[in-house]
């Protein structure tokens, strides 16, 4: 069911939601950006509509609610392991179409990869619902249309929010509310009932082509070399990505006698040193170029080979955050070009061989 609301009614709706849910939403943090006097949009808990950044795509992903940067798995005390309780009060997450597509990727890895669903992920996931923020226009670095993630998957959200100008010129909010329990909360505050289709973009300035096939020769291609000079292996591109899921186990102990400690898992980045280190000094993918190759191929090829669809949702966050101005979309396009060139060369060789025969 869809509704139109005035701003006051909408504020009341968010207030009422805050009474039932912890609201996890993008928030503009003034002056907290990477550079002096810059702002950043990060996720945080809010209790009112006015705290939420509705118009700019967040710089950081929503995923920390499901996969915290650091998560205690259990404590060690005197030979006992104790799993700490989680905050399992219900959460409502405000996010965009690409993010809901990213959620499918998180679920894929945490719930469907391997023999069983992830215990720690599930115990939070089961308490999280989703509210779609419509996208009337494309934002910085986005290429969601190329990745097919510009539209929220069917059934992926419980309510949507779009801001439009009403016929009287006053700002209006349109909400699509498929969840009956939430519709009951919205309906009394609405000015009208009507069909609502959340806004989505149909074209981005940035476009990418993903390679259908990647020949093994691409591993040795010189397209990766430029990153050796440019990438500083800081891993920010992974930490902001809504589809990155990797973590590293870490044990710590706090008392001098070593009696009390904990095991954590912390977010990991395949761009950062140590990701592949094994005992005896073994390490795979030593250079930034190798790591970039691994990351790009995983996002637009290897994940697809395993799970049937591409991992990257084209949100553009990795490009926006990179301190070295490395453009992820450009990297994907260079890969696609190189693959096409390899394929053309292979065909030419074959035809040449055929002509000689």
């Amino acid at each position, binding site marked *: 069911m869809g509704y139109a609301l005035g701003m006051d009614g909408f504020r009341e709706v968010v207030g009422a939601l805050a009474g039932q849910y912890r609201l996890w939403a993008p928030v503009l943090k003034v002056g907290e950006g990477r550079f002096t006097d810059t702002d950043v949009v990060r996720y945080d808990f809010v209790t009112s509509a006015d705290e939420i950044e509705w118009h700019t795509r967040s710089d950081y992903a929503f995923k920390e609610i499901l996969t915290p940067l650091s998560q205690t*798995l*259990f404590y*060690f005390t005197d*030979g*006992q*392991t*104790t*799993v*700490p*309780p*989680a905050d*399992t009060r219900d959460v409502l997450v405000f996010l965009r179409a690409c993010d809901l597509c990213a959620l499918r990727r998180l679920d894929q*890895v*945490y719930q469907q*990869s*391997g*023999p*069983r669903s*992830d*215990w*720690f992920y*599930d*115990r939070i996931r*089961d*308490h999280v619902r989703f509210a779609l923020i419509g996208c009337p226009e494309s934002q910085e670095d986005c290429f969601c249309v190329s990745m097919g993630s510009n539209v929220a998957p069917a059934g992926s959200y419980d309510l949507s929010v779009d801001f439009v100008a009403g016929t009287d010129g006053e700002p209006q909010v349109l909400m699509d509310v498929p969840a009956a329990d939430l519709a009951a909360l919205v309906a009394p505050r609405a000015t009208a009932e009507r069909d609502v289709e959340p806004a989505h973009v149909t074209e981005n300035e940035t476009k990418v082509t993903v390679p259908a096939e990647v020949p*093994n020769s691409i*591993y040795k291609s010189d397209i990766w070399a430029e990153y050796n000079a440019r990438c500083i292996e800081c891993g920010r591109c992974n930490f902001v990505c809504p589809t990155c*899921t*990797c*973590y*590293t*186990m*870490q*044990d*710590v*102990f706090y008392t001098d006698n*070593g009696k009390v*400690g904990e*095991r954590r*898992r912390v977010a*990991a980045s*395949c761009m950062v040193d140590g*990701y*592949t*280190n*094994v*005992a*005896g000094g*073994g390490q*795979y*993918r030593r250079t930034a170029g*190798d790591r970039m190759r*691994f990351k790009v*191929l*995983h996002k637009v090829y*290897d*994940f697809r*080979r*395993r799970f049937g669809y591409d991992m990257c949702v084209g949100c553009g966050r990795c490009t926006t955050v990179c301190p070295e101005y490395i453009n992820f979309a450009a990297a994907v396009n260079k890969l696609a070009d190189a693959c096409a060139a390899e394929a053309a060369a292979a065909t030419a060789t074959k035809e040449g061989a055929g002509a000689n025969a």
Partner: protein
Amino acid sequence: MPSEKSVLVPGVAPAVSPEVPRMTPGPAAVQTDNPYVPWPARILEIVSHTAREHTFRLEFAGDVRPGQFFEVSIPKYGEAPISVSGIEPGRSVDLTIRNVGRVTGELFEGYGVGDQVLLRGPYGNGFDTSMFMDGEVVVMAGGTGVSPVRGVIDAISHSADAKDKHVIVGFRSPADMLFRDDLARWADALDLILTVDGAPEGYEGNVGLVTKFIPDLPLRDPATAKAVVVGPPPMMRFSIMGLLKLGLAEENIWLSQERKMCCGMGKCGHCRIGQHYVCLDGPVFNYVESKDMLD
């Protein structure tokens, strides 16, 4: 609902199931409600091969096969993936461990018979030993690489045509040899070639890399012979080159890959190579698949 069970005591080891999974690769049955919580396992015995390499026999009653691995925890130090080097069904597993760092160091220094370490697993596909019982087989193992194939070698040493089973085992030096008792048994049962990379003056055994012995393998039909190769990456690379040159078919060669692994369950991502998770699809791979797994 997992969230209701916020506090758990350590998980319990699984009971023995009558059916050992054989053909399907992938981890065996689920043990605990929360697979990240390891269970305490008592150290039943410790065999010291060298100062740096010990075999720890640990209580374990569940299903497991050679080539699979466990995550061994030393609380507050961390976890380490370790291959199963021996199995006594329903009672114990052997883990042969080299002391190289934080977890393994603490295990060597602080733990003795009767103490408990924490375990979770087994993980990975492991070897299907039944595949190697018939026909000509070559097993090549280097150093701690013997651990994952020890069960395979044991199995083929009891096969009907054990004379057609050739095992090349290499260590750095005579002092680095592991599984001496097993080596003696295997030497009696099958064609064992034991070699060391280097040895002090007067050493009477074979000296040379494992690859040196490939050309002289007395295979009647290399095209149908099967091979298993496990060891450090360069050793595996050159051994496979040698076996292919001898005429073995790519699809008849298996190897075991090692990668950093934090979970063993297809979640943490560290073990990925291309589309593969080494912890799920491996660590044992057929060469046809593994030759296209590029890092």
